[in-house]
């Protein structure tokens, strides 16, 4: 059974599967299912954790975990959303150790809080970086609130 079929069998009800091409598959899941899906991809299907990326969007920070399946010429990206304003996601690191650094990076750059992460200490930004400033966000929450107020 192919990787995609196995994912569909196991997470069919929970993950929206989007097959963009034979080599690129995107799965969209609720945040409470991320850890189980990540663990399934890594431990049972033998996917290699490649990296994760964050994108600042209107409803929150969208996080994508990219898993490479080297025997199948396939990259599976798991997409989930950390909603504003809490920006809380369960950490994948306890299940997938390779995610440790990149979750720290997303924490610093976007302010996403990964619950259960062993060490969210500063990795890239200077020690004297001001609190609450997240360089990869599109704009600050304050300015967005002002924008919404003006639109209304």
């Amino acid at each position, binding site marked *: 059974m192919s990787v995609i079929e196995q994912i569909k069998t196991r997470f069919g009800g929970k993950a929206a599967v989007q097959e963009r091409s034979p080599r690129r598959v995107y799965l969209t899941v609720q945040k409470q299912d991320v850890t189980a899906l990540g663990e399934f991809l890594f431990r049972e299907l033998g996917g290699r954790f*490649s990296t994760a990326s964050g994108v600042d969007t209107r409803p929150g920070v969208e996080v994508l975990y990219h898993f*490479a399946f080297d025997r199948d010429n396939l990259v599976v990206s798991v997409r989930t959303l950390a909603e504003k304003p809490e920006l809380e996601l369960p950490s994948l690191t306890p299940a997938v150790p*390779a995610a440790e*650094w*990149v979750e720290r990076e997303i924490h610093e750059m976007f302010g996403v809080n990964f619950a259960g992460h062993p060490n969210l200490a500063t990795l890239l930004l*200077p020690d004297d970086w001001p609190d609450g400033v997240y360089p*990869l966000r599109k704009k600050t929450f304050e300015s967005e609130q002002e924008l919404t107020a003006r639109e209304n």
Partner: protein
Amino acid sequence: MDKKETLIPIGPYHPLLEEPEFFKFYVEGEKVVDAEVRIGYNHRGIEKLSEAKTFDQATFTVERICGICSTSHPFAYVRAVEDISGIAVPERAEYIRTIIGDLERIHSHLLWVGLAGHFLGYNTVFMWAWKYREPVLDIFEAISGNRNHYGMFKVGGVRRDINDIAGLLKAIDDVESFCNMLLKAVIDDPVIKARLKNVGVLKKEDAIAMGVVGPVARASGLAIDVRKDHPYAAYDRVKFETIVMEGGDIFNKTAIRLLECVESAKIIRQCLKQMRPGPIDAAVREVGAGEGIGQHEAPRGEVIHYVKANGSNYPERHKIRAPSFMNVPSFKRTVIGESLADAALITAAVDPCYCCTERMAAVEPETGRVILTGQELVRLSQEKTEQMKVKLRG
């Protein structure tokens, strides 16, 4: 911290690494018992910068991420952009991309071997490796006009054609014979073998857990190589071996890099012979909206770029993950239990790029007194080699 432990900070300027990184080693006597790392001294915000560049400009921005593997990032980046709307690249451009990618592998690996040789106290290896790296840079200059930062890549193709096929074939033959000579000299040397065997071992299960890539993964028995597993450019049209070893130590990592130089020379030769005349650029007008992922097997392992486009001429988000981001954290599983004389070499064995800056010190935490300087740590490593030479040669 236990009273018996001494804190040894290495960095931010590591004597062997190009980029500043800060390692803290906790040692008991000679033995490393714990380690921490801090990066970010060189963070230039390229991902953010890229959002303010057009898709064409960002190719040049990402080329400047690294001075050694300068083509790896544009390679992965243009593939990510092409992935967004399925842009097809002309065949000749695919061959030229392959040639540039693997020429870079040769010069990058030779650079590492040279510096590792210097660190071990083998300055002959250092001088040889760098001497033979020079003709590779000359080839780059002949192709692109630049010894580094070649500016060859663009979305949809390459910027320059390769014309002097016969001259390049001759140059590649020379490079391959140099690599073979260096390979035999280094692999058969009993002292180098004794000095590097079973040092800094990364176990296979740790390699899987940490998601390491490139020669570091292949030295620990993981047969992964983006060129083989996710074929792209012309890599599925040429024959080459993926070099895999089981030991996971520094000797394996060194041997793999040298053997890969020879394989790369084979790839380049086949490309030069198989290339047919044709266009080198798909003349892309629009990127469109969507998201794309591009991978490339850089000298240090898989580079992956994620690009999200919203239909404008600028990327909405551009995520860059270099191979060292996966390889550097693995040092925590390799360095603990090793001696201080090996620690700096182990952290360098993943090849997170090199540097000519030399400032490393061992400090007593309470007093701040410097007990070992960077030069002394290098000397410590070189002395260990000397002692082994005496022991082995009687």
